[in-house]
């Protein structure tokens, strides 16, 4: 699809002034609400997402004989989140699709054998959507799971990547770049184990470019994981300072 915009200028700067492999500015906070067991807020550039986790609790009436955890997700986008007002926050095709992708990615991360025949509810609310909504939603869900104290194999992190006309891979696609025609690839990966839990492409990629784009996305995931780990450590120090075990680590 011919992109009418030049994603990458001659000096190697993108439309919003970032370098090709530069992420948008990430800010996150754990423990935003009291009522859910775990909650988190994450901002990646202008995409703002809230996540809440309830559980593990008794599965409501669903089939419970399979002795692993039932992950019940809900992805909903606030009606004022996009430039064009959406008249229904959830229930449309896109949010159901993202709900399935979230379930698939998170079931790869959660140690399900520790919570047999129980259910974990993960609710994601996108307050402002500015590209890579699914990726930021998954990162926020990971933080909320950590805040809820649910055992994870590892941080599951998602990142998007694209390809400029001059075949230079770009990481972390904003809505403007997405709309102006760049092909988009979303990867949800377990970075240290180098495993890919979920992969989705909005358009066709040429075979020999695919390899490099996936590699850049994985590099993005590793970078995001370090930022999230730092944030979680800082949150734990802050939480622990009251009980003065902050000096331990």
């Amino acid at each position, binding site marked *: 699809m011919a992109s009418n915009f030049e994603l990458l200028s001659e000096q190697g700067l993108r439309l919003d002034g970032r370098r090709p492999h530069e992420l948008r500015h990430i*800010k996150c*906070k754990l423990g935003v609400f*009291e*009522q859910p067991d775990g909650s988190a*807020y994450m901002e990646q550039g202008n995409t703002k997402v809230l996540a809440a986790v309830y559980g593990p609790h008794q599965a409501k009436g669903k089939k419970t004989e399979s002795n692993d955890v039932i992950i*019940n997700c809900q992805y909903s986008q606030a*009606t004022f989140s996009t430039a064009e007002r959406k008249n229904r926050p959830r229930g449309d095709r896109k949010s159901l699709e993202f709900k399935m992708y979230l379930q698939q990615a998170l079931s790869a991360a959660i140690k399900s054998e520790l919570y047999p025949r129980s259910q974990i509810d993960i609710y994601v609310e996108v307050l402002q959507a500015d590209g890579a909504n699914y990726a930021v939603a998954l990162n926020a869900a990971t933080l909320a799971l950590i805040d809820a104290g649910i055992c994870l194999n590892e941080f599951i992190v998602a990142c998007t990547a694209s390809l400029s006309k001059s075949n230079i891979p770009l990481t972390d696609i904003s809505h403007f770049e997405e709309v102006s025609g760049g092909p988009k690839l979303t990867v949800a990966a377990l970075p240290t184990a180098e495993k890919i839990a979920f992969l989705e492409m909005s358009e066709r990629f040429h075979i020999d470019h695919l390899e490099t784009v996936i590699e850049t996305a994985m590099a993005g995931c590793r970078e995001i994981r370090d930022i999230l780990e730092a944030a979680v450590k800082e949150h734990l120090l802050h939480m622990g300072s009251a009980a003065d075990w902050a000096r331990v680590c």
Partner: protein
Amino acid sequence: MAYVALSEAEKTYILHGVEDDFRCDGRSRRDYRPMELETGLVSNASGSARLRLANTDILVGVKTEIDVPNPLTPEFGKLEFFVDCSANATPEFEGRGGSDLAQELVLSLQNAYESPLAFDYRTLCLIPGQQCWKLYIDILILECGGNLHDAVSLAAKAALFNTKLPRVTATLLDAGITDLIISDNPYDCTRIGIETVPLLVTVCKIGDYCLVDPSAEEEVCSTVSVVVSVSMRNGEPFLSGTHLTGGGAMHRDTMRNCLQLGLSIGEHLDKLLTKMLKLEQERVGPKRPKTVGFLK
């Protein structure tokens, strides 16, 4: 409302607290819980506000659209409310769970904003009979901590204060139809007058005492509450959409002093809110610190 299970002993404990005017969180019957208000959070919306009343968390976004006015009232603009109970508040709200609570909130807001003396619809009109602004007020309930009516009305008023309507110039084309040009300069905008916009004050009856700003537990052990919608017009309070909720009945005299209590509190609340919004306005000026949003 998220259903909080309370035992009989807890209910009597709360009842005794209310009787000697010293509630279980230390407030008297006329006190509100601490509130945090912040405007201009969502950049996609033309106006937004977030209000956190103890653990009730509301986020309101206002978006604008050009629409044809209602033929019966050609010179009035339009206002539409939409309440979405996010599942973040309780698993109960998942899917269509919170729809009847949302319906109740939308109805009481519509009822309160219905009169043009409460909200001046004339300022939203561009060309009488042909073009007018339509404001979508979308209310997102992120956490339920009791007293939703007050929190929602305060957040809606703050979001309306923060709304920036782009300036519209009409040029008369040859065929007699007028064409509208909306200026996209972000600073060239008009604001909406919110002095007379009503505030809902829930006066809740527990035992035979009336109290304001009930928490989730207090709401469970109250039989009936009066939602007083107070609108200030050149200084004196007016009622624009009062009704009873809670499925109980109330004696006539208790209803009267609930009304008085609601009016005085509403007046006080309105003054405080306008003062806060002025503060917000300077803060949003050039020397504004970053909006904190949920990162606090």
